[in-house]
C-alpha cells in the first residue's frame, strides 16, 4: 500500500528540535519537602509572603491525590524522583544584555530558529526567553517601561513589584485548585509577569520561549498577566524541548486578569517532545490555564496549537464575571504515534450578556488519542448569555481515537447555548479532486488539514500562524488514512 509506506517513512522522521545543549546545571537533588521549597525560595531571594504562600500550597498538595478522570493512560509519576530546581550557572552575575548571555544558550535558540537578536530587529517582538527555570534575556524592556508596561520574569516581579504579585497571584487559580496547580504553587521556578496599566495598548506582541533542557527537571512555570482597565495585550508562548527517553513532568499555571474594557489574547504553540514512535519518553504536560474577565466589557481569548507532548492535560478557561464580557477558545490539537491529549476549555458565564465561542479541532493519527473535554456553565445571574461550541475531529488510521466529552449546564432561560461536533476522515473525493489538479497526495492532505484548522489559525498572530502550519505539516505529513 503506497499510503502505508508513506506513513511509515514520515513517522520515522526524527523530532527536529531533539538535541541537548551542554550547559552545566546547578540543580537541587531530586525530591520534594518543605526544605526543598525553602531552598527554592531562598535561592530566588523571595520575600517572606511568597515562601509562606508556597508552603501553604505544599501542605494542601499533600492532602490531594492525582486526578484520574482524564482519558489518558500513563504509569504513575514519582514526585520524589523529580528535581524541582535547576538553572544555568553564573546566576550571581546575571546578564544585563544579550551580549552577556552564554553563547551556548543563544546557539540553542539559533538551532530552534528563534534568533533573539534577529527578532529584536526584524520582527519587533519582545522576547522573554526562559531557559529551563530562569529568564536569561529580556528585550525591549526599556521601550515597554516607557509606557508603564511591566514585562519581566516572575522572580523579578516578586522582587520588584511584590504589591502587584500579592494582589493578583492565586486569585484566578487558587493554590488549592487542583493537584498540579497546588504542586506548581509550591515549587514554581519562574515564568513571566505582565502588567499593562490603565488605558495602555501594548504596542507589540509579547513572547516567551520555554525550553526544558536539563534531564530530570520538571519545569513549573507560573505566568501572571494583568490588563488593567482599558488595556490591551497579546501574549505568545511557544515551546520545544530536546529529545530524551525519560518522561518529564511539566505543570505550569497561567493566570490572566482582565479588568473593565481590557483585552488579553494568549496564544500558544506547543511542540514539546512527544515521545518516539513506540511511545517512549515525551513530556507530560499537565497545565492549568485560566483567565477571569473581572471587569465589564472585558475580553479574553485563548488560542492554542498543541502538537507536542506525550500527554497533554490542559483546559484554558475563562470566567466571565463582568457584564458583556467575552471569552474565546480556539484550539488545534494533534496526536500522532502514542500521544494522548485530553484538552478543552471551561466557560463559566456569571455576568449579564456574556458571550463565549469555542472552536476545537482535533486530529488523531497512528495510535494517538485525542479528547475534547469542555464545560459551558451558565449561572442564574447570566441573563442573555450566549455560547457557541464547535468541536471537529479528523481521524487518520483505524488505531487512533477521537473523543468528545462536553458538559453543558444552563440555569438561565434567556441563555442560548449550542454545541455541535463531528468526526470524520479526509474523504477520497476531496483527495481525488486535489490530486486531479496536480497536487501530490501529501500536499493535498496538507491543504485539506490546513483548511480544517483554518478557523483556529486565523486567530494566531502572523508569525505564529506560519510556524503552526509548518509544525502541523511536519507532525502529520503523509499520514493519509
Amino acid at each position, binding site marked *: 500500500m503506497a499510503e502505508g509506506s508513506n506513513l511509515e517513512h514520515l513517522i520515522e522522521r526524527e523530532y527536529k528540535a531533539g538535541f541537548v545543549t551542554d550547559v552545566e546545571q546547578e540543580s537541587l537533588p531530586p525530591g520534594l519537602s518543605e526544605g526543598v521549597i525553602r531552598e527554592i525560595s531562598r535561592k530566588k531571594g523571595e520575600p517572606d509572603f511568597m515562601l509562606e504562600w508556597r508552603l501553604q500550597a505544599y501542605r494542601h498538595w499533600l492532602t490531594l491525590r492525582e486526578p484520574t478522570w482524564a482519558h489518558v493512560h500513563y504509569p504513575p509519576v514519582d514526585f520524589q524522583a523529580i528535581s524541582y530546581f535547576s538553572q544555568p550557572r553564573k546566576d550571581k552575575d546575571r546578564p544585563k544584555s544579550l551580549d552577556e548571555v552564554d553563547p551556548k544558550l543563544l546557539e540553542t535558540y539559533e538551532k530552534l530558529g528563534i534568533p533573539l537578536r534577529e527578532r529584536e530587529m526584524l520582527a519587533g517582538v519582545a522576547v522573554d526567553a526562559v531557559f529551563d527555570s530562569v529568564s536569561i534575556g529580556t528585550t525591549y524592556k526599556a521601550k515597554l517601561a516607557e509606557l508603564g508596561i511591566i514585562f519581566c520574569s516572575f522572580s523579578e516581579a516578586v522582587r520588584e513589584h511584590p504589591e502587584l504579585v500579592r494582589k493578583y497571584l492565586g486569585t484566578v487559580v487558587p493554590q488549592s485548585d487542583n493537584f498540579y496547580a497546588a504542586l506548581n504553587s509550591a515549587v514554581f521556578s519562574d515564568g513571566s509577569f505582565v502588567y499593562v496599566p490603565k488605558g495602555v495598548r501594548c504596542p507589540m506582541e509579547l513572547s516567551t520561549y520555554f525550553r526544558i533542557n536539563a534531564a530530570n527537571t520538571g519545569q513549573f512555570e507560573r505566568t501572571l498577566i494583568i490588563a488593567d482597565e482599558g488595556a490591551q495585550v497579546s501574549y505568545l508562548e511557544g515551546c520545544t524541548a530536546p529529545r530524551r527517553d525519560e518522561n518529564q513532568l511539566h505543570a505550569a499555571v497561567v493566570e490572566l486578569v482582565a479588568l473593565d474594557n481590557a483585552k488579553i489574547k494568549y496564544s500558544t504553540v506547543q511542540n514539546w517532545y512527544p515521545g518516539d514512535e513506540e511511545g517512549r519518553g515525551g513530556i507530560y504536560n499537565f497545565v492549568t490555564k485560566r483567565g477571569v474577565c473581572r471587569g465589564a466589557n472585558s475580553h479574553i481569548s485563548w488560542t492554542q496549537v498543541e502538537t507536542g507532548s506525550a500527554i497533554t492535560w490542559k483546559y484554558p478557561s475563562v470566567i466571565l464575571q463582568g457584564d458583556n464580557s467575552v471569552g474565546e477558545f480556539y484550539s488545534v490539537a494533534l496526536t500522532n504515534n502514542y500521544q494522548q491529549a485530553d484538552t478543552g476549555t471551561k466557560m463559566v458565564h456569571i455576568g449579564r450578556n456574556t458571550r463565549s465561542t469555542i472552536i476545537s479541532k482535533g486530529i488523531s493519527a497512528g495510535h494517538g488519542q485525542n479528547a475534547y473535554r469542555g464545560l459551558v456553565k451558565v449561572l442564574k445571574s447570566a441573563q442573555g448569555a450566549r455560547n457557541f461550541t464547535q468541536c471537529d475531529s479528523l*481521524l487518520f488510521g*483505524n488505531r487512533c481515537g477521537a473523543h468528545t*466529552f462536553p458538559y453543558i449546564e444552563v440555569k438561565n432561560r434567556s441563555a442560548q447555548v449550542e454545541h455541535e*461536533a463531528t468526526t*470524520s476522515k479526509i474523504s477520497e473525493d476531496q483527495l481525488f479532486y486535489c490530486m486531479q489538479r496536480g497536487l501530490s497526495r501529501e500536499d493535498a492532505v496538507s491543504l485539506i488539514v490546513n483548511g480544517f484548522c483554518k478557523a483556529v489559525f486565523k486567530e494566531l498572530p502572523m508569525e505564529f500562524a506560519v510556524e503552526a502550519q509548518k509544525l502541523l505539516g511536519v507532525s502529520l505529513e503523509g499520514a493519509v488514512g
Partner: protein
Amino acid sequence: MSTVIDRSQADFHRLAGFLPGHQTPWIADLRARALARFAEQGYPTPREEAWKYTDLAPLAGKHFQPLATRDEVVARVAIDDYVLDPQWPRLVFIDGYHVPALSMLPAGVSLAPLAEVLAQSPDTIKPLFTASDEARGFAALNTAFMSDGLCLRLTPNVVLEQPIHFIHIAHGGARPAASYLRHLVLAGRGSRATLIEHYVGEGADAKAGALTSTMTQCVLEEGAALEHYQLNEQGLSVYHFSSVHVHQSRGSRYVSHNVQAGARIARSDLHAVLAEPGAQCVMNGLYFGRGRQIVDNCTFIDHQAPHCSSRQIYRGVLDGESRGVFNGHVMVRQDAQHTDAQQMNSNLLLSDDAEADARPQLTINADDVKCSHGATVGQLNEDALFYLRARGVAAERARAMLVQAFAADIVSHMSAERVRMHLDALIAARLGR
C-alpha cells in the same frame, strides 16, 4: 446511606422465601449476590460520574417496602384512563404484581408474567440473567427483589400486528410500596413487534409516594424489529428508575420512544449493543419537567460491529424548578468501521428556575465513520411568539403551540397513532394551565 442498605437487607430476609423462583437455587443465588453488590455501595451518589446531576438524598430517609406476594395487591383500581386502545392486548400490573383480572392476553403468542416463568420453567430464561450479574446500584436492587414483569418470546418470523400494552400502576396500600419489575423480550429471527411500557399511579398518597424500579432486557436476533415505548406518567411523589439493555444481531432494528413526564425523580438508562453488522438503533426521547422534578436520561450506544447506524434525538421541556439531564454516550469500537452515528439533544427552558444539563459524548476508535452530535439549550423563539400574538393568538396558547411543535419532532416518529394522540393531549393539558 447505611440505613438504606440495612433496610434492604432486612426486607430481603423477610421476603426471600416469597419472591418468585425462590425454590430454584440459581435464582436464589442470583438475588443474594445482587443484594451483596448493592450493599457494598447503596444508592449511587452524585460523586459517580453517571449520577453527577441527580442527587438521591431525598430518597435516603424513605422506606419503600416491596410487597411479599400477589395477594397483597389491592386490585380495585380503575384502569380506563390508562387504556390507550381497548383492542390492544394488555398486561396490567399493580405494585409489582400481575393482575390477571385486568389483563387481556393475546392468543398464539408466548407472553406471560415473569413470575410465572420463574416459578414454572426458570431454566428457559437462565442465560438472560448472566448480564445482570455484575450490575450495581438500582440494577442490583432490582435483581434482588424482582417480583414480576413481562416475558415476551417471539418465534422466528412472527409479526404482531397490535402493540402489547403493559401498564404498571403504583398504587400502594397502607404503606409506601416499592415495585421491582423485570421484563424480558426475546425477538426471534425476522420477528416484529411493538411493546408499550406504561407507568402510572401516585402511590399510596402524595406524601408517602412510591418507588418503581424497572429493568427491561431485549434480545433482537437477526432481522428482528422491535418498537419499544416507555411512557412514564407517574405522580410527582413517585421515584422512577428504569433501565433497558438491548442486544442487537445482524440487520435488526430497535426503536425506542422514551417519554418521561412524571415522577419526582425519573431516571432512565438505555444501553444498546450493536453486536453485528447492519444493526440499526433509534432512540427518541422526550422529557418534561415541572415543579421540583428531576428527569435524568442516560443512554449508551455501543457500536461493536461495522456498518451499523444509530440515531438519537432527545428533547426536553423544562418548567418550574425542574432539572433535565441528558447524558448520552456513543462508543465506536476499533473495528466498527462505516458506523453512522448521530446524537442530538435540545432543551427548552420555560422558567427562570429550571435547569438543563447536557452531556453528549462521543468515544471514537475507528477512522472511517460518520459521527456527529449536538446539544442546544434555549427558550421559545421570540419571533415565533410575536408572529402568533400578532395574529390574535393568546400568549398561553401561543406558547403551547410552540412547545407542541418542539415535541412534534419526537412524537411524529411514533408509529402508534393512539400514543401520539395521548401525548398531544398530555402536552396540551400540561401547558393549558
